[in-house]
């Protein structure tokens, strides 16, 4: 399907790769469908682009790349809601906040987007235990690069060719 986005223009998304939010992203609850976009597979930041509203997109990063010892407790009701059968199917993504002046970049470890990579159901889950920061500073590219070994989710749309001038 084709979607019109404010940041990337018109892009074509394979419908089977769409992530379906249960309960939505807090503040954006009405938007349930998102696509994962990248334009350079060597960069750990991706876009979480709303399919329903082309102007809404978040920069996200795999939470384990931000903190390798990240171990949030996900409650049984969340596991049930997302129909998670095995821990290996879970992908945790942190929403990244970027401000340019002064240049700071933080990841939200308090409320990651929990994605079941099998059925692509997802939810922004507030982690109670342990208490992780809402604004965790990302400042170490080398550390991030190591996280490449982490298993990712399939169906990330590479938009570099579509965006080439």
């Amino acid at each position, binding site marked *: 399907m084709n979607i019109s986005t404010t940041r990337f223009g018109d892009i074509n998304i394979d419908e089977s790769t769409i992530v379906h939010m249960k309960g939505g992203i*807090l503040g*954006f609850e009405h938007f349930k469908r998102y696509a994962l976009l990248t334009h350079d597979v060597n960069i750990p930041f991706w876009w979480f682009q709303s399919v329903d509203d082309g102007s809404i997109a978040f920069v996200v990063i795999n939470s384990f790349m931000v903190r390798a010892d990240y171990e949030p407790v996900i409650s049984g009701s969340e596991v049930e*809601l997302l129909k998670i059968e095995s821990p290996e199917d879970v992908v945790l993504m942190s929403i990244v906040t970027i401000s340019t002046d002064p240049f700071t*970049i933080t990841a939200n470890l308090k409320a990651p987007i929990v994605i079941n990579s099998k059925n692509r159901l997802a939810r*922004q889950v507030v982690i109670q235990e342990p208490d992780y920061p809402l604004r965790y500073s990302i400042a170490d590219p080398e550390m991030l690069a190591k996280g490449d070994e982490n298993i990712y989710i399939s169906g990330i749309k590479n938009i570099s060719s579509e965006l080439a001038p």
Partner: protein
Amino acid sequence: MLILTRKLGESIRIGDDIKIVVSDIKGKQIRIGIEAPEDVSIHREEVYQMIQEQNLLAAQFDHKGDKELVHLWKRLKKQKEERK
């Protein structure tokens, strides 16, 4: 805002599938039990506000064009170099 008075153990229904029970009262603290459909998210107000604000802030990163994240990545690396 609708205000209702309830005693310990009494409850309130919101729509067909949300039930709120006053489960304990101790001085100025009240314990509340909530039954709601599983996809309804329930948060303490202050936590909800905090996360919503952060999400709204994150969504403002709306640089046009395609190479923003590459720039970001390079900038992060450069910043690291400068600190050494």
